């Protein structure tokens, strides 16, 4: 077992790669009564074209299958896994993102029975045509629920605008039509390809003894047999640098228009501290341009172009990256024009110097330390960073390394007008 000390953060991280390829990380946190354990595969909604384990031809599986598989993992021949966690007093959950599927529980008691349950249920697939059919009704209602949420529609509409054919433009849960095609065979094929331990990571954080937990997981894994790992072959379409659709709108029954200004960004093949710096520079630049201390925010708020719903978001994963700047606005066109003007003016003359950067570095350092209070944040973000070749705990050194030049570099793709797109949800009150 490897030990990594982060003195300034007063944290110690324990790591081991097991013989079957599973990565295990443990972070004990003093004073906590709960333990949070997540078991994550590097497999999400975008992985829809791949070479199944042991086969030679690529397949294209129905949209929404990673999320469908996540749902079905909870049903076993002898009943529902939630019931078993419930009996152990643990709350269990799972989520599917573009690039990951995570299973997790948090518990203040019965840590080892719960850990065993987590490892075992994720490693024992059980799908029948009957249980697959039954799930279609439940997921159909989940999809319909999201269809009725204008904020989700606005966010996803913006991503759809940006991409021509990359699967990031497909809703994570798929559609009622696409999930209709899913069969138990599909689920097994995806499972065997992506749920190999060598494609997965366990993170345990909170009230946990690292030696004991590592031994427990080691033993659990040693008792199981797995196929020889093979490198996973995924295929993604070529994607142009420009946004696919520059502007689009839909109508919904909303009280006020919603608007998302989206920018398609390049995703350089970086890892380690360079990747972290790249990501932090983009986030800090967005804060400086559009955050609550920016001229943009002050003016747009005074003019009534933005309200409490305003926010910016930067997403970067292997294969795609984008930024969205969104709000409810009585005048969505004027809002979008103001965002354009802000980006153009920054590109003409870069408005931020060392003072502005220093203030953001102090802020980010504080935010990071505050985030370390949350064991859920640590587990989820650590896993995401590790899958992308970064280390969450390098955040402070990466921040200290940032220069104004890095922010200037981050502006170039953000100010590329070909990469801009606007999506609006407009009120439709007439019936």
């Amino acid at each position, binding site marked *: 077992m490897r030990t990594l000390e982060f003195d300034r953060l007063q944290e110690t991280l324990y790591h081991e790669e097991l013989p079957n390829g599973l990565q295990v990380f443990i972070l004990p946190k003093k004073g906590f009564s709960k333990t949070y354990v997540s078991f994550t595969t590097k497999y999400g909604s975008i992985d829809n074209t791949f070479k199944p384990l042991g086969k030679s031809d690529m397949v294209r599986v129905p949209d929404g299958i990673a999320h469908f598989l996540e749902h079905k993992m909870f049903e076993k021949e002898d009943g529902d896994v939630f019931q078993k966690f419930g009996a152990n007093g643990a*709350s269990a959950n799972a989520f599917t993102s573009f690039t990951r599927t995570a299973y997790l529980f948090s518990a203040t008691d019965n840590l080892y029975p719960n850990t065993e349950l987590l490892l075992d249920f994720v490693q024992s697939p059980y799908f029948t045509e009957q249980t697959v059919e039954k799930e279609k009704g439940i997921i159909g209602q989940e999809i319909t629920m999201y269809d009725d949420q204008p904020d989700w529609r606005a966010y996803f509409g913006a991503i759809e605008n940006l991409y021509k054919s990359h699967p990031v433009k497909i809703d994570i849960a798929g559609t009622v039509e696409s999930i209709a095609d899913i069969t138990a065979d599909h689920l097994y094929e995806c499972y065997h390809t992506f749920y190999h331990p060598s494609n997965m990571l366990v993170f345990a954080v909170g009230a946990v003894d690292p030696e004991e937990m590592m031994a427990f997981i080691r033993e659990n894994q040693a008792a199981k047999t797995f196929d020889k790992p093979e490198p996973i072959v995924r295929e993604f379409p070529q994607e142009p640098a420009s946004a696919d659709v520059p502007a689009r709108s839909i109508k919904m029954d909303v009280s006020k228009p919603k608007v998302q200004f989206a920018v398609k960004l390049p995703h350089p093949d970086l890892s380690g501290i360079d990747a972290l710096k790249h990501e932090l520079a983009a986030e800090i630049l967005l804060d400086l341009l559009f955050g609550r201390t920016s001229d943009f925010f002050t003016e747009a708020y005074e003019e009534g172009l933005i309200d409490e719903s305003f926010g910016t978001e930067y997403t970067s994963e292997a294969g795609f990256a984008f930024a969205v700047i969104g709000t409810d606005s009585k005048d969505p066109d004027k809002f979008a024009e103001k965002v354009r003007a802000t980006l153009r003016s920054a590109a003409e003359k870069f408005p931020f110097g060392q003072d502005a950067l220093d203030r953001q570095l102090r802020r980010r350092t504080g935010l990071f330390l505050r985030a370390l209070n949350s064991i859920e944040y640590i587990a989820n973000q650590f896993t995401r960073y590790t899958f992308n070749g970064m280390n969450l705990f390098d955040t402070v050194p990466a921040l200290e390394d940032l220069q104004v030049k890095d922010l200037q570099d981050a502006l170039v793709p953000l100010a590329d007008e070909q990469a801009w797109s606007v999506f609006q949800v407009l009120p439709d009150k007439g019936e």
Partner: protein
Amino acid sequence: MFTEFRLAEGVRLFVRRTTQFKTVTFSLRFRQPMTAAGASARAVLANILEDSNETHPSRAALRSALENMYGTLYYTDVGKRGDYHYVSFNAECVNDKLLEEEGVVDWTVRLLADSVFRPNMQDGNFKPQIFEREKQTVLERLSSLYDDKTRFAQQRLMQLMRPDSPESIRATGDEEHVGALAGQDVLDAYKRMISEDEVDIYVAGDVDPEAFSEEIRSAFNFEGRIPAVSPQAATERRGKTGRVYERQAMKQGKLHIGFSTPVLFGTEDFPKMQLTNGIFGGFPHSKLFMNVREKESLAYYAASSYLSRYGLITVSSGVDPEQAEKAAALIDEQLEAMKAGEISDLELDQTKAMLANQLREALDSARGQIEIFDQYKDLPGGFSPEAWIAKWEPVTKEDIQKMAGTIEKELVYLLSGKEESDDADA
């Protein structure tokens, strides 16, 4: 859990020393009896006091100072509990001990004191442009409820069941009252809050309680006050019963069902009713989830909440409108089963374990510690998590059956895009 200091009549400080967190968390809460007019004025007031203060006289100046103080978090909020309305001032800063400089915690105490006692004034009132803008912001927050169909449906259920009473008054007030506010109304609400409200101040983090109580005492120079007590409702609050179906342009049906029970927060039966609600629909192992979702595939979510201060239990589920009647019948069946004593040992044990876990888990965040302690602290005998968990242990199936027997259905509300006739009986 917290060490209590009495700063003045009606003003208490609670400090919890812990090394669990890398930050120090503050919450100041001002409490008074709830009315729609009061909630409306206080919602705008809270926004004004978050915008800026005398020391940092613009939003950008205040936000910039917060960024410079290692991203110290500062916000105000409004909330309600039972018949009372709250305005809270909240902050969280990195503990100096983790930084290469000192004074961040002291700065945050001054920021809170400035925010409460030294607002951004002009000619004896809040600046008109800030007042107008924040009034607009609150109006927009109120109207945005329409866009969130689940919250909208829940609010309609409460309005229909308990019109014009604390159950259905929103913490942000309502559009009519907020729209009619003048600057003087908000100033009056401010003066009243400062001098008349009951005040609870919470601090959680690695600080010395004794020394810190002195710092707080001198930073916040509160005068004593005798807080107003909410009048007990003279008549039983009742609204519509039966069914109400309403329509909006949407795909899913939002089925919300309201039940009442005489068992209230803090009574002897209260822990039993917490368990009863847990078995009914509080968790993924509960009857609603297992039957409405897992067995019949009618919904993605089906859950119940126990609004213990109001003696209400509400169920919500997102269903295909065509299946709403079937789902409502299935929900009724689950409650009837409990009334008939159909409760397994497993269900009871799971629910006890889950409630205990939920409580212990909530205490793993500073905000959770403050929230839970604040809710339970004034019950006779005070509050400790383990003592509370012990109250659930001896509860039996017979107790649950008895509790279920007190639950009465009042109203079924369905919001959907489907054509349906209104057939409520008032």
